[in-house]
C-alpha cells in the first residue's frame, strides 16, 4: 500500500493504480470522455488532466486516466493550471462537436458556454475518443471499425467506408459512445446503425415465442462460429421468453 495526496488529503492506493482510479474510489470528481472501465485507457481527450508533484521533484500536468500513482505523489485536480487546460479543451471540443449535449454539459461545468473557435462541421457529435473502436477491438474482438486518416481528417469508419463484413451489429459501439455520435434503431426486422459517415443495416432474428425481433442474425452466426457446442436452437427464444 502506498499513500497519495489528492487535493491536500492523503489516500491509500495500490501501486500502479491510475490517479483516476484512486480519485474515483474516493469520490473526487475528474471529468472524462475517453475513459471507460471496459477498455484499456488511451489518453486522447485530455480533459482529465491533473497536476502532479513526485517525490523526486517532478512537476507536470498528466492525464489522470493513465498516470500510475507512486508513493508520496501529490495531485491537484482542480487548480488554476489544470482548469486552464480543461477550459481550453472544452472550448476546442465545443467547436468540434457543436451538436453534442454531453460536451456542452462538461464545458458548462467548467464555466465555458460558447466557443470562439470556428465550427468546421455543423451537427458533429464525435469527439474522436476512440471508445467505439477500442470496444470493438478489445471486447467484441471484431475490429469492424477503426480510426482512419490523420490529424483533422481523422474519423471513425468501416474499412474503405463501405465494407461492414466484420460488423456483427452487436451495438457495443453505440452503447459506449459518450456523446451519442453513433445511434441504433431496430425496426421492421432491420437493425440500423448510423455512424457519422455511414449507415449500416442488418437483419434481425425473431423470437419463436413472442415474435419480438431481438438479436441480429450476424451476431448469432458469430456466436455459433466462436463457441463450439452452441446450437441454433439456443437463439429461438429471446431473453424475456427464455425464463
Amino acid at each position, binding site marked *: 500500500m502506498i499513500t497519495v495526496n489528492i487535493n491536500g488529503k492523503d489516500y491509500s492506493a495500490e501501486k500502479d493504480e491510475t490517479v483516476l482510479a484512486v480519485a474515483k474510489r474516493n469520490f473526487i470528481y475528474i471529468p472524462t470522455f475517453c475513459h471507460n472501465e471496459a477498455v484499456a485507457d*488511451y*489518453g*486522447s*481527450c*485530455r*480533459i482529465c*488532466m491533473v497536476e502532479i508533484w513526485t517525490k523526486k521533484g517532478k512537476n507536470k*500536468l*498528466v*492525464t489522470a486516466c*493513465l*498516470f*500510475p500513482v507512486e508513493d508520496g505523489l501529490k495531485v491537484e485536480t482542480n487548480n488554476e*493550471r489544470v482548469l*486552464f*487546460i480543461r477550459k*481550453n*479543451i472544452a472550448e*476546442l*471540443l465545443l*467547436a*468540434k462537436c457543436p451538436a453534442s449535449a454531453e460536451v456542452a454539459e462538461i464545458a458548462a461545468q467548467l464555466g465555458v458556454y460558447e466557443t*470562439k*473557435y*470556428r465550427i*468546421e462541421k455543423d451537427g458533429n457529435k464525435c*469527439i*474522436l475518443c*476512440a471508445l467505439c473502436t477500442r470496444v470493438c477491438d478489445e471486447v467484441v474482438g471484431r475490429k469492424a471499425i477503426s*480510426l482512419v*486518416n*490523420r*490529424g*483533422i*481528417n*481523422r474519423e471513425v469508419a468501416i474499412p474503405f467506408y463501405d465494407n461492414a463484413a466484420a460488423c456483427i451489429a452487436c451495438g457495443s459501439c453505440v452503447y459506449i459512445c459518450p456523446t451519442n455520435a453513433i445511434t441504433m434503431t431496430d425496426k421492421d426486422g432491420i437493425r440500423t446503425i448510423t455512424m457519422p459517415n455511414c449507415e449500416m443495416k442488418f437483419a434481425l432474428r425473431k423470437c419463436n415465442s413472442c415474435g419480438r425481433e431481438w438479436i441480429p442474425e450476424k451476431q448469432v452466426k458469430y456466436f455459433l462460429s466462436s463457441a463450439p457446442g452452441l446450437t441454433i436452437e439456443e437463439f429461438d427464444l429471446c431473453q424475456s421468453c427464455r425464463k
Partner: protein
Amino acid sequence: MITRLNATQELEGLRQQILASRNQDTLRITVCCGTGCIAQGAKKVVEAFKRELSAQNVNAEVAELKETGCHGFCEQGPIVVIRPQDIFYKKVQVEDVPKIVARTIINGEVMERLLYSVPGNKKEKCTQESQIPFYAKQERVVFKNNAYIDPTSIEDYIAVGGYASLVKVLTTLQSQQVIDTIIDSGLRGRGGGGFPTGWKWQSSKDAAGDIKFVVCNCDEGDPGAFMDRSIMEGNPHLVLEGMLIAAYAVGNVSEAYIYIRNEYPYALKHAYKAIEDAKAYGLLGDNILSTGFNLDIKICRGGGAFVCGESTALMASIEGKVGEPRAKYVHTSEKGLWGRPTVLNNVETLANVPVIFEKGVEWYKSIGTEGSKGTKVFALVGKVNNTGLVEVPMGISLREVIMDIGGGVPNKKQFKAVQTGGPSGGCLPESKLDLAVDFDELTKNGSMMGSGAMVVMDERNCMVDTARYFIEFLEEESCGKCTPCREGLRAIRNILMDICSGKAELEDIDRLEKLCLAVTEGSLCQLGGTAANPVLSSLKYFRSEYEEHITNKYCRAGVCKDLIAFYIKDNCPGCVLCYKACPTWAIIYNGKGVPVTLIQDKCTKCGACLDVCNLDALEVRSVYDNR
C-alpha cells in the same frame, strides 16, 4: 572474396591487407553522390568519368573513381574532389569531364574555371577544400570520412579504421565501462530532445528483462533537415558500429532495428548493403568476431509520417500498428518495443559513439560547451549563400554559422530571422545571432536544437506567414489522437490565417498566445508539445509584425497577398529586371531611364519583381493605403 573474421585481432590484419593492396600514388577522383548532388547530375558525371578514363587510357593504377557520400556543400554540386591533392571542383557537368581527365588527371593542371571563388571576389580562387570558407570553420567528426569513402564498400570503412572501436570495446571494456564512458563523454541525443545518451543506455541496462532492443531512428522529417540521411547514405557502417556498441553496452540485445523512411532510397540501399557486408565479415550476426556477442540488425521502412519520428509512434510502427504515440509515463527505455526495454537513438547520436572510443573521451570532451559536448551537424538552408550540411563544434555562434560558413544572405537582402530545430523550433532574430549554439542556450531563448535544421530568413519572409506555414505542416502531420494537438492546431492555424488576411483583431493575439500555451501543456506527445514554438517565438521577437498585420493591414515582407500591393518608385531606371521576372506581364517597359509601369489588375502579387530588384525601386504598400 570476403572471408569471415574469426578473431578480434584479424580485423587489424585485414586493414593492413587492404591498405597494402592500394597504391598510395593513385589519384582518387571522388564524386559526391549524396542525394543533392545526384539531383544535380552527379551520376551522369560518374558515367562520364568511367567513359573518359577508359577512352583516354587512364588505368586504375593512375586514377581510381570513387562515388562517395555527401560532401556537405550542396549549393555547389555536383562536387568532384581529386585526392590526394584535394583539388575541389564545383558544379561539374558532363561536358567538363573529358577536360578534367585530360588536364588534371593526365597533366596535373588545375582547371581554374571549375574552382570555387568567394561570392563578390571572383578573382580569388580556392583550389582546395580547406581554403573554402564554407569548410574552413567546420570541425568534421561524424562527417569526416563521408567525403573519402565509398559507402557501399566495407573495405573502405575498415581502411580508415572502421570497426576498430568495436574491437576495442569488445576486447577491453565491460558493458558498464562502455556506458560510463558515454556518460562521461557528455554525449546528448542529437534527434531533438538532447537527453544524455549514457543515462538512456543505463536505464535500459538496469531495467529487468532478458530481451532488449536497440533502435536507430532515421525517420528524419523536419523540413530542411537532411543530416541523418546523409550520414546513413554516406557512411552506414559508422551507424552500424555505433549500434553494435550500444547493444553490447545495454546487454541482452540480440536484435536491433533501423527505422528508415522510405523516401530515402539511397540511405536504404546503402544500409541494406552495409548489413549484408558486415554479416559476411562476421562483424554482425551470431558470435561476432568469435567473442560470443550476437546482434542482428533489421531495417524497418517508414511510410513517411512525420509523427513516426516520435519514439512511441516509431515503435508502434515497427510493431506493425498505426504510428501513433502513447503516453510515456513509463519510459521506453524500460518498456518500449513490444513492451521490452528499448534504447532509441538518432542516427547522428549513434555515429558519434565509435568516434568517442576511437579518439578518447578527453578529446571528445574538449569539443563543445559545458553542457553540450562534441559537434553538431546542421542543415543550413533558406536565404543563405552556401546551402548545405555543416558540422560545427557546439558553442559556435549563430553568426559564425550563418555569416561565415553560410556566406550570409544572398542578393544584398537584410537578414531577418533563423528558424532552428525544424517546425517545432523557434525563430530567432538578429539580436540573438551571437548566441552560442548548444542544447541549453537555444531552449532558453525559445527555440530548440531539434534535429539541427537551420532555415535562414530575410526581409522577404513574413514572420506571421512563416508561423502559419509551420503550423499548417504540423496540423497535417498531427496523428489526430489527442484533442489539443488536433483541434488546437487547427484553431491556431485559423487565427493565423485571419491575421494574414487582415480579418483579425488585436485581442486575437492574446487568444493565440493562450491557446498556444494550452496546446503545449495539454498535448500527448512532443509533436503537439513543441508545435506552438514557431508561433510563441515569433510572437516574442516579432510581435510588432503581428500587430502591423492587424492594425495597419500591412505585410512589410510583401508576402500576405490579401494585404499588399506593389508600387514602382520614382527612382526606377527601367532596367527591365522586374519586367523579365514578371510571370503575368503586369509590368510595362517604358524605355530606358523611365520607370516601368505596374498594372495592378494583372499583378498576382507573387513578389518575383521584389526578389530581383536590387535598386530598391519597388515599394510594398497596404491595399488599404490610399496614396
